[in-house]
């Protein structure tokens, strides 16, 4: 199934996340990841949701999300015209024999080592899904002890912005511009 990126502006108050998450589970939509955080406007949070499904599914997700009163705006991001990033923290086995090789890989991927212990290295890695997958693949040989990921966040390239205020299009999916 193809993946789709939705940027969703929501009111920043309690209960919104559970409404959104609840909607996905009860309508049987699959999400790959959901990341949420406050925006430049403290009253507004932005969710980045990666949806797994065909066009019908994404349209349904969008329309159903739009029906939530706390959802202010939704935009589907074109992967070509947006920047998508995820942060992963990876704790990997490291012995005196493997340590330098791991550091080399970290350098090549422009990742960072954020913690060191006698037998582990903890690495911070930011990147696209592909890049993180490739990095994970390279580290597997050493033994990944733990990995945690934030889920993807995304923003459009260029001048385009998604603003809460320019709303008023709740559900105008089928083109309902005034006469």
């Amino acid at each position, binding site marked *: 199934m193809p993946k789709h990126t939705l940027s969703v502006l929501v009111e920043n108050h309690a209960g919104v996340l559970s409404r959104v998450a609840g909607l996905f589970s009860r309508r049987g939509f699959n999400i790959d990841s959901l990341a949420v955080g406050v925006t430049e406007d403290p009253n507004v949070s932005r969710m980045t949701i990666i949806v797994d499904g065909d066009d019908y599914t994404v349209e349904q997700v969008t329309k159903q999300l739009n029906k939530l009163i706390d959802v*202010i705006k939704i935009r589907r991001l074109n992967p070509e015209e947006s920047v998508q990033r995820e942060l992963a923290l990876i704790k990997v086995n490291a012995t005196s024999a493997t340590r330098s090789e791991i550091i080399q890989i970290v350098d090549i991927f422009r990742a960072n080592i954020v913690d060191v212990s006698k037998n582990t290295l903890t690495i911070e890695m930011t990147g696209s899904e592909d890049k993180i997958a490739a990095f994970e693949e390279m580290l597997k040989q050493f033994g990944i002890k733990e990995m945690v990921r934030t889920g993807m966040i995304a923003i459009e390239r260029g001048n385009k912005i998604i603003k809460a205020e320019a709303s008023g299009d*709740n559900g105008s999916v089928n083109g309902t511009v005034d006469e």
Partner: protein
Amino acid sequence: MTMTGAQVLVKALEDHGVTTIFGYPGAANAPIYDVLAGSKIRHILTRHEQGAAHAASGYARATGEVGVCMATSGPGATNLITGIATAYMDSIPIIAITGQVSTEVIGRDVFQEVDITGATAPFCKHNYLVKNSKDLSRIIHEAFHIASTGRPGPVLIDMPIDIQLGEAEYDEHKEPDIRGYKPTYKGHALQLKRIAEAIAQSSRPVICAGGGVISSAASDELLELVEKVGIPVTSTLMGIGSIPGDHPLFLGMLGSHGVSTANQAVNKADLLIIMGARAADRATGNTDKFAKQAKIIHIDIDPAEIGKNLGTHIPIVGDIKIVLQQLKKYLVSDYKKEWVDTVTEWKNKQLLKNADSINADDGAYVNPKYVLSVLSDLTKGDAILTTEVGQNQIWAANHYRTIYPGSFITSGGLGTMGYGLPAAIGAKIGRPDKTVIVVSGDGSFQMSMQELATIKQWNVDIKIILFNNERLGMVRELQKIKYKGKYFAVTLEGSPDFIKLAAAYGLPGEKVTKNSEVRNALSRALQNKGTYIVEFTVDPEESTL
């Protein structure tokens, strides 16, 4: 002026024109009741919170206003749930106000605490847990706005007791501006043009009218279109009454429990215009086989309904009344005489067949279809009919002639047994000028029969038509057809003598066992001042269709 939260609530309800609340008190909403005692709002004490929610729904559907129900926290709130879900599925504007434990102990599972906003989120249009007194006014105004505009639906407000007791400010500004909620009312000009063209080009158009036609009060506009162009109309269960049941171009309800002429017309149609309907499974059956020859136009105020169940060629989002008014300007179609003639012929044949099949001879049982056709003659449609769920519901849908929009009140989407009686109570309280009748089954009746006390206490006048087949008839029929006649858990042995039961509440009634007694018994019921129950002995083998 400083007020308490409970005072703000009651003041806001009064300002929104609420005259009646259906509810049930408890400790967690006692401060509200303390204020209600001094308000001009009438509080109707039901005998179960579910009855209060259903009554609010019946009230809303009969009056076109928002219905209000109220319950205490915990079990009071959970008892509302079926009523809220029922209203949600049928897009009925109700507001449910629940008491809640004090904000500082929320989450600690204290006595009678339940997460009612969490529990009802999937079937509320929106809900609120009031955590801060300063939000209270705004929340109440928003709740009325959200419940009654766009696609209507239930909104729940959960009010912790400290919010009810604490100081709050009342802001009378009633028009909220909610940035995430801007329903679209007007249709898109381009789509209107495309619809007009499609109608002009079609030779076999059919309209499928849903509950949205009724909630947007678009019946006049619908009739005008239908008569001008000559478009036969079928309706969903929720759409019954959107066009008069005796209109020559009305074919009856479509779908698995509908009229064959209606289904035939949809199958032959080259254009199907769905208005304010979800195109749900009971109406369409297998969508792969539904209206295969037709181009599909779907008009709905909820964009999420368009394309959800059925592929659509011309979608248009908007309020049906407004869209139909706009459409007039674009219409260029000739009258579809040939098609109207064809469909009329089908319809007449069907009517003859129906007349033959409705046996009015005396036998061991009363024929419920005959009862409903006699009832139609007697009321001439000038009554509000509510139904329960089961065979009784479908008999009423297909054999009672509903004439006026909003006068057929039934649980369409959720199919909730126990809805009809409390909904009738709400309808009668909202429209005391109308005759209100409930068509019930012996199973459904027993799910809400405690509300007979509500009827008695508040002196509500309802005509109860009870079809007693001593069975959960519709489930029994399902077992007969789909489970090789292995009947299980569908007999209702142990049911009370319903006439005696009513008498115990001081309500008169009679039992009818012969078709020849039907007309007189119904007349007595209709003429009686006050509630009257007529129980009809019905054959368990009587088929739904």
